C-alpha cells in the first residue's frame, strides 16, 4: 500500500488516530445508554457506568466458563469473542433492566422530584460497584483472548493495527447500525420516539409506557454491556472499570447532543480522537485537559451539542 511521505515519517499518527477511534467507538456504544434513557425520561442514568462494569464481568465469566484456562488458536477462535460480546451484552441488559425496576420505576410512580432520581442513580452505582469489588475481588482480571485477537491485524504505514481495535470497531459499528435500525424502523423504535416526544400523548395513542421505558433501558444496557466486554478485553476487568468510560461516554453524549442517537455516536468518536491526538506533542497528563477544553469550547458555540438535543425529532 502506498503510504504518504508525511505519515511515513510521523507514523505515530496512525497509532494515535486508530487507537483513538477504537476508544471512540467504545465511548459511542456506552453513550447510547445515556442518550436513550435521557430521551425517554429526561434524566441522566448515572448508574450506567455500572452497566458497563457488569458487561465486563459477564463477558469475563462467560469466557472463563467456555475456555477454562485454554487459549484457542486459529481464525475461527474469533467465534469465542462472539460468546463474550453476547454474554457482556446480556449482563449489561439485565443490570439495566433491574436498575430501572428498582431505582427508577418506584420513583416515577410516586412522581418524585428530579433530584431524587439523581441520588437514587448515584446510590445504585455505589451499591453495584462496591458489591462487585466485594464479590469478585479488587484486582484487575484479564479476559482470555484467542491468539487471533492478541497481535496486530495488519500494518498501516509501518504501524501495527491491533486486532482488538479492529474487533472493537467492527462490533461497535454493527451494534450501532442495528440500534439505529431498531429505533428508526421498528414498532418498538416508534414507541421509544413517541415517548421521547410526548409521553402522555404516546400513552393515549396506545403506547405501553412502562414497557417502552424498560425496553429502552435494556437496549442501552445491551450496548453498554457489550462495550464493557470490549473494554475489559483491552484493559482488564475490575469493579471500578466503569467509572471513567462512563464519564467519558456521558460527555460524548452531551457533545453529540444529549437524546440524539447519531449525536452520541459522533460525540464518542470525536472524543476518542480528541483525546489521542494531543499525545503527539504532550504528555498523557494533558490528555483530559485538551479533550475537555475542546469540549467546553464546542459547547460554548453549540450549547445543544453537535447534532442538537432530543430523541425522535430530526436534528
Amino acid at each position, binding site marked *: 500500500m502506498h503510504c504518504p511521505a508525511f505519515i511515513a515519517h510521523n507514523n505515530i499518527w496512525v497509532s494515535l488516530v486508530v487507537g483513538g477511534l477504537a476508544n471512540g467507538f467504545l465511548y459511542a456504544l456506552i453513550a447510547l445508554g445515556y442518550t436513550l434513557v435521557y430521551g425517554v425520561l429526561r434524566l441522566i442514568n448515572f448508574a450506567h457506568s455500572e452497566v458497563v462494569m457488569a458487561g465486563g464481568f459477564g463477558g469475563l465469566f462467560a469466557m472463563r466458563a467456555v475456555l477454562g484456562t485454554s487459549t484457542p488458536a486459529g481464525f475461527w477462535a474469533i467465534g469465542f469473542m462472539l460468546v463474550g460480546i453476547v454474554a457482556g451484552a446480556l449482563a449489561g441488559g439485565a443490570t439495566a433492566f433491574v436498575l430501572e425496576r428498582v431505582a427508577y420505576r418506584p420513583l416515577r410512580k410516586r412522581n418524585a422530584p428530579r433530584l431524587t432520581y439523581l441520588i437514587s442513580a448515584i446510590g445504585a452505582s455505589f451499591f453495584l460497584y462496591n458489591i462487585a469489588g466485594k464479590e469478585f475481588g479488587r484486582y484487575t482480571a484479564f479476559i482470555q483472548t484467542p491468539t487471533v485477537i492478541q497481535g496486530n491485524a495488519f500494518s498501516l504505514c509501518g504501524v501495527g493495527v491491533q486486532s482488538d481495535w479492529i474487533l472493537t470497531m467492527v462490533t461497535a459499528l454493527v451494534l450501532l447500525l442495528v440500534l439505529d435500525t431498531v429505533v428508526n424502523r421498528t414498532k418498538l423504535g416508534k414507541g421509544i420516539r413517541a415517548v421521547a416526544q410526548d409521553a402522555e400523548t404516546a400513552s393515549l395513542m396506545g403506547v405501553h409506557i412502562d414497557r417502552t421505558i424498560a425496553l429502552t433501558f435494556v437496549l442501552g444496557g445491551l450496548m453498554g454491556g457489550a462495550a464493557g466486554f470490549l473494554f475489559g478485553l483491552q484493559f482488564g476487568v475490575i469493579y471500578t472499570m466503569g467509572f471513567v468510560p462512563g464519564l467519558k461516554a456521558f460527555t460524548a453524549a452531551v457533545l453529540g447532543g444529549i437524546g440524539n442517537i447519531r449525536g452520541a455516536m459522533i460525540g464518542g468518536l470525536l472524543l476518542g480522537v480528541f483525546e489521542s491526538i494531543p499525545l503527539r506533542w504532550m504528555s*498523557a497528563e494533558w490528555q483530559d485537559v485538551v479533550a475537555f477544553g475542546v469540549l467546553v469550547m464546542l459547547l460554548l458555540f453549540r450549547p445543544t451539542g453537535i447534532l442538537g438535543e432530543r430523541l425522535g425529532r430530526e436534528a
Partner: protein
Amino acid sequence: MRQLLIKAAVPLVVGALVLAGLSGAAFANAKHQATAKPTFDLAYEGPLSGGNAQLGLNMAYAVQYAISQANSGKSAFGNLPFKLTYIAKDDQGSATLSPTDAQELVSNKSVIAVVGPAFSGATKAAEPTFSANHLATVSPSATLPALASFGWKNFFRVVADDGVQGPADANYVVNTLKLKKLYVVDDAGTYGVGLAGAFAGQAKKDGAKVTTNSFPGTTQCSDGTASPTQYPDDAATVVSANPQMVFYGGYYCDLGLLLGALHKAGYKGKVMSGDGSDSISLIAGTNPTSAASGVYATCACAVIGKSAADNTFAAGFKKIAKFAPAIYSAEAFDAANTIISEMKLLSSGKTGTMAITRAAVVAGLHKITYVGLTKTISFTSNGNIKGNAIYVNQVQHGTLVQLGLE
C-alpha cells in the same frame, strides 16, 4: 559511675523479679538470682493491628525469633552473658499512637533498645522522645529520607531511604547495563514523580540521553484518576522515541497495564521500575503475562532464600509466625541481631554486662559492622545504612528473581 551502676542494676533486679514470679520471697530470690544472667528487654514498635498489621507482623515475629535464638545460646553469638526479653508496642503504624508508645518504652528502664518504629510517620513522631532518653531505635523499614536529617543520635535504619533508590537505579542502568537512551515515565503521584525525577537526574549526570514523560495513574489502580484508555497511545509515543529502556516511577498495577500496551505496540527494549512495582502481583496484572518477562524491579528490601542461613531463618521464622517470612522480615531480624551483637561487644569488656547501657548501645551502633542476612550493616553518622543497599530483581519464568545488589 554511680549512675551507670544504677542503670545496670535496675534491669538486673527487674529481670530477677520476673524470674522469681513476683512471689513474696522475691527479694530473697533476687539475691540468689544475681549470680544468674541479667535480663534486658529488646522492644519492637510497629503496627500489630489495623490495616497495616501484616507488615508489622512480618517484622515482629522476626524480632521474636532473633531473641529466642540469642537466648538459646545456639546462634552465631554463642552463649551470651545476658538474657533478652521480647516486648512489643503496637502503634498501628500511626504517628498519633507512636509518641505514647515511645513514652512507655523509655520509662520502662529495662528496655535497652528498640527495633522500629516500622513506619516513617510514626518514627518521625516518636523519635524526639527516644532521642531525649538516649534509647537506640533501629528501624527495619522507615524509608523517608528526611528522618536522617533531624540530628537524632539514636536513630538508625537498616534499609536504604527512598532518595537512594532512584540514583542507584540510574547508575545500574547506565554503568552496569550500559544503556544510554532512556525513557523515564512517572505516574504523576508523589512517590512516582520523586523516584522518576531522581532516576532521570542521575542518569543525565551519567551521560545518558533521557526523555521524560508522565502517564498519570488510572482509576483501575489504587490512587489514580486517569483512564486506562491512555495506555495504547502512551505506548505509541514510547515506541516512536525508540528507547533502550523505559524506567517507570509508580506502582505495579499501572505498570502492568503499560507493559501490556507496550507489548502490543511492539516495544522491544527493556523496562525497569522501583519498589512500588517490586511485587509478584505485577506479573498477574500484566496481559499477556509474558509482557512482564525481563522487567527489572528494584527495592531496598532483600529477597531472602539464597543461602543456607536464609533457609534456617525462614524455617525458624515460620515455626513462630505460622507463615513464611515476607517483606521486611529479614531486615527486622538483622536489626535485632545488630543490637544484640553490639550488646555482646559491650559485655566482653572488663565490666561485663554492667557496660550494657542505653547510651553505650547508641554510641556502639555508630561504630558497628555486622554481617547480617540482607547485607553488611554499618551506619553513617546520621543513622542511615552505609552503601547503596538497593537490590535489583528481574521477572524470570513468571516469578521475581533477585539478581543482587546494584
